[in-house]
């Protein structure tokens, strides 16, 4: 009897929590949506203002640093090789990853002038908010793009972009993993190859 009452009390105690959870998730979703909205406005605005690639890199760099979890991405993309890398290698790799990422994003955005982004809903997946959107640009069918936002409540950061079901960070990780597998798992060689890319 006592146990049952305790159980009931515990249940009642948990009730506000249970009702609070969906509300919390909703606000997190809204926060994530607002975050993606302001970030994409900033990026698209910067694209419109700037002309040359060099100029774009300079303007986009700080925006990317602020809105993307670059260090976390770098770590994820190195996958199982992160653990075997020395602290020095990790540091050099993260630095060059940073530059490669900014370069790639600038080049990718250069393809998509007059792009239009319509932001849809957000749904929670574990601790991450997935904000859906539709990207439209002339002469192309609309593309669905999902933005994975971590820490939506406190310090929102984009940790992945999923375009038409393909995750950008997963693709990058598999690219690096394959390169490393064919190059004696040598992280230094990977860093050199990434540097090589930057000079191209």
């Amino acid at each position: 009897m006592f146990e049952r009452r305790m159980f009931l009390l515990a249940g009642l105690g948990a009730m506000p929590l249970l009702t609070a959870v969906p509300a919390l998730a909703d606000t997190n979703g809204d926060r994530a949506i607002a975050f993606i909205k302001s970030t994409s406005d900033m990026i698209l605005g910067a694209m419109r203002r700037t002309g040359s690639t060099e100029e774009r890199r300079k303007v986009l760099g700080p925006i990317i640093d602020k809105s993307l979890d670059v260090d976390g991405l770098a770590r994820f993309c190195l996958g199982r090789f992160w653990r075997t890398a020395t602290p020095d290698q990790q540091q050099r790799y993260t630095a060059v990853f940073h530059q490669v990422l900014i370069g790639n994003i600038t080049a990718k955005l250069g393809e998509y002038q007059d792009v239009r982004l319509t932001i849809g809903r957000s749904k929670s997946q574990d601790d991450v908010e997935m904000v859906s959107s539709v990207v439209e640009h002339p002469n192309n069918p609309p593309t669905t793009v999902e933005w994975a936002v971590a820490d939506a409540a406190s310090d929102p950061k984009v940790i992945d972009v999923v375009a038409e079901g393909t995750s950008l960070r997963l693709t990058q990780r598999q690219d690096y993993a394959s390169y490393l597998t064919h190059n004696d798992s040598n992280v230094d060689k990977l860093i050199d190859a990434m540097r090589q890319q930057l000079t191209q």
Partner: protein
Amino acid sequence: MNADLRTTAVPTVVLLARVWRFMLFAGLLAVVMAGCATPPPADDPDAVAEFKQTNDPLEPTNRVFYDINNGLDTVILRPAAQGYRFVVPGPVRTGIHNVLTNLNTPVQLSNDVMQGKPRRAGDTTMRFLINTTVGVAGIFDVATGWGYPNHDTDFGLTLANWGVPEGPFLFLPVLGPSNPRDAVGFGVDIAQDPFTWVGNSTAATVFNWTRYGLNALDSRERYLDPVDQIKKTALDPYATFRSLYRQHRQGDTKALRDDNRATIPVWFPQAPADAAAVRNR
């Protein structure tokens, strides 16, 4: 006119047959020379997990085909697609793309039905009816604006929806990234295409090969920029294309499985759950 068509069509077929025979020969040679990928040592569980996840036991052979395809693409298809983009204005290319998409609707509809997706089948039917008539033989995609959007589908996805696993990754000559399931799907789609069976008159042959050729040009033209971009930014383009292809197919399969839109008209008395689903749409 007819004689003209015959002289141009026949050598094309013969040429393609020769290319195929060469590819087959090159393929056999590649299999003999390259063989299978060596699995990583069992004492490295992370490497083993990665090997299993990549699901590419024929990697060395696949890479040979990737190189062959890449070579053919560099000298034939890519320049052709660039020429196509340069010569044909954008709106005309869109029109051609729409006609090609419309010609594919019988195959699409057949797959929608086999997948047990009535709403998709409805979309496809309406698209065909609207675009063939109002859209002037499919040149204009009116249906999308009227609420019947296009969706990609093929027999590979039908098999996926039936629960057939993808199997090991394959890089096929000419066709590119695939797997046993999607390769079978490709064959079945040709077989279930009514245009394959319109008869063996010269006109039919010319029509079909023109359609295949235009399809290749159209899709290559659409991928010109992304493919160039990947080749420039990827350290291992083969691995990147493999990853993208597999993720894309898995994404399409998921989207197909999750597409369970209600088939009851909005005005019909509905079950509460369905009504809620309709309201939320």
